[in-house]
């Protein structure tokens, strides 16, 4: 019997503009909870699930409810805006948010553990790959918020430093689906690649329309003007649909196609639990990792108090589906393994390159960028 029964909050938008990924995050978190509860460990979790449906005000309301009920640990948030919105609540309540998604960095809250990648683990490897293997000119298309702005800034500086150029940047409100004009502009500019920071349905619409526009002109889009991003994941390939899901370049620390025993176990169990989808994704794995790290840390600390749990989590090393993962004691960010993949028609990614070992997070880019912000080349090699 477990010594500690711990309520755990899950704050994930199963509805709303980014629900395809968020639902896979929920599946990943619940899978880890069930695994821990079934393992006979000294900790058992009692999940309390809140669905803010992508609305900032509901993140606050549901977060407040969870914390008022005495919950000390919440796994959740996908967008940075939602995370920023609820961090003050966690600081006030002395609680810990386990944030399981990639983000732009430049944050290190004492009340957050970050299990997704930051720029030096996703964007810098992608920029390096694109500038050295694809081409020197880019058009950036993004959703109009911090994720796109900051990623485009880093891309612009890296491209400039490497003798390349960003030809244009276009931003659209979250949820936009009309990309006719920007597609015309891209075809006119003929960049070596498109850097896509659109999220959710906007991204799927853009990818479908762009493919169709290229086909109408006899352009082999994946070959001639590939679209690259740090976000596109397996459940989203399903959402794009068969006509345009292949040939997109993604930088991620996790792909469902990773060939490890841990991943085979993870994906088999995930598919058995969720036969009708959503497909497993990097953010699902990050959620799965977050819950497992939390379970191990509470078991070792013997308490849910956040200082003790933070000290304990920094001592854990887990063999996650993506490989070895540990959390840095100073930044509370996870060391993860960067990879570059290209989507296929079967809804999976072919892994083109990967880092030889996990890479520590550098949330403020103090180790991977110069004083003026230009980036240093990351270390990736061709996946065998």
């Amino acid at each position, binding site marked *: 019997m477990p010594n500690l029964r711990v309520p755990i909050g899950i704050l994930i938008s199963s509805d709303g503009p980014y629900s395809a990924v968020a639902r896979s995050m929920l599946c990943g978190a619940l899978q880890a909870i069930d695994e821990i509860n079934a393992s006979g460990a000294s900790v058992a979790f009692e999940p309390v699930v809140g669905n803010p449906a992508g609305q900032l005000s509901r993140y606050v309301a549901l977060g407040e409810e969870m914390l008022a009920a005495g919950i000390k640990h919440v796994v959740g948030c996908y967008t940075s805006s939602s995370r920023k919105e609820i*961090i003050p609540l966690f*600081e006030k309540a002395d609680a810990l948010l386990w944030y399981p998604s990639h983000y732009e960095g430049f944050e290190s809250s004492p009340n957050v553990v970050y299990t997704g990648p930051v720029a030096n683990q996703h964007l810098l490897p992608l920029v390096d790959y694109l500038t050295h293997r694809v081409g020197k000119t880019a058009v950036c298309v993004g959703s109009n918020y911090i994720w796109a702005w900051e990623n485009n800034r880093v891309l612009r500086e890296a491209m400039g430093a490497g003798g390349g150029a960003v030809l244009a940047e276009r931003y659209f409100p979250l949820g936009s689906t009309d990309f006719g004009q920007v597609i015309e502009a891209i075809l006119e500019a003929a960049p070596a690649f498109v850097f896509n920071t659109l999220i959710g349905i906007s991204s799927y619409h853009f990818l479908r329309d762009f493919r169709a526009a290229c086909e109408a002109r006899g352009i082999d889009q994946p070959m001639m003007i590939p679209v690259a991003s740090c976000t596109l994941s397996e459940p989203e390939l399903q959402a794009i649909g068969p006509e345009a899901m292949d040939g997109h370049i993604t930088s991620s620390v996790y792909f469902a196609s990773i060939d490890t025993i841990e991943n085979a176990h993870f994906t088999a169990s995930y598919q058995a639990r969720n036969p009708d989808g959503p497909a497993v994704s990097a953010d699902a794995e990050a959620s799965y990792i977050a819950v497992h790290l939390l379970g191990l840390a509470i078991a070792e600390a013997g308490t849910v108090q956040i200082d003790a749990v933070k000290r304990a989590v920094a001592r854990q090393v887990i063999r996650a589906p993506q490989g070895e993962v540990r959390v840095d004691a100073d930044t509370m960010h996870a060391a993860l393994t960067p990879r570059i993949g290209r989507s296929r028609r079967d809804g999976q990614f072919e892994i083109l390159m990967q880092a030889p070992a996990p890479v520590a997070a550098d949330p403020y880019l103090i180790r991977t960028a110069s*004083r003026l912000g230009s980036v240093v080349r990351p270390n990736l090699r061709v996946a065998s």
Partner: protein
Amino acid sequence: MTPQRLIQNFKHGRGLLWAGPDFNAETLERTLSKLGVSLTRLEHVDGTALDHNRDIVFIDGDHAFDPALLMRAGAALPPAPTIGMVGVEAPSRLKLLADVGVTAFLRKPIQAAAIYAALFLGVNNHGRMRVMDQRLADHDRRHHGRRFVIKAVIALVQYHGLSDDEAYARLRRESMRQRIGLEEFCAALVADGSGTFPAEWPALHAEDGPSRHPGDKHETHDDDGRRSGGSADADRGPGRGPDQAGRA
């Protein structure tokens, strides 16, 4: 104005803290260390010998501080970026921070999430103000030298029959050739002229004949850069081009 490159990585920086003994520096120190910035007490270093490329001063406005510890006499800016920490928002305390020229502030108690932004604004605003300070000093210097330019232009107009535009262009060209500021060049001309200037000014055209400034040991140059006066190349040292043949 050329856009200033913004500094965004503060690794190897040195934070210098001025605060009372009861100041809780834990959050500040821990967050700065994540940003690659160390933290030591300001009283352990010479506050007037700071390096603006490395040092960032944090001043607790609630703790008595003599601005002279940091500010050079007459300076408008502290020698390194300075961030004020505000506890009591009373004008007397805020005045201290204004007096030392803080370029960013942190509200007390210090919150980790505000520190990077304070560093970014503090350092880059300081850099921007430093550039403006230098430009202001440069303008002051030029402003003081303007009367010599006017004197030199008038003299050229009076004695050489040039228009004021031609006179100005001539002076400007000559000062550029000698790689000194127009104002300094004119001041030296007017001072050296000793009443005879510009009658002894080198001729406008080489064919007007050699011409030397009284007491001038070096050759001078005509408008086309040809040397006039002196004894051909005899006094021209190795590697010494016409541009180095300075009068002033």
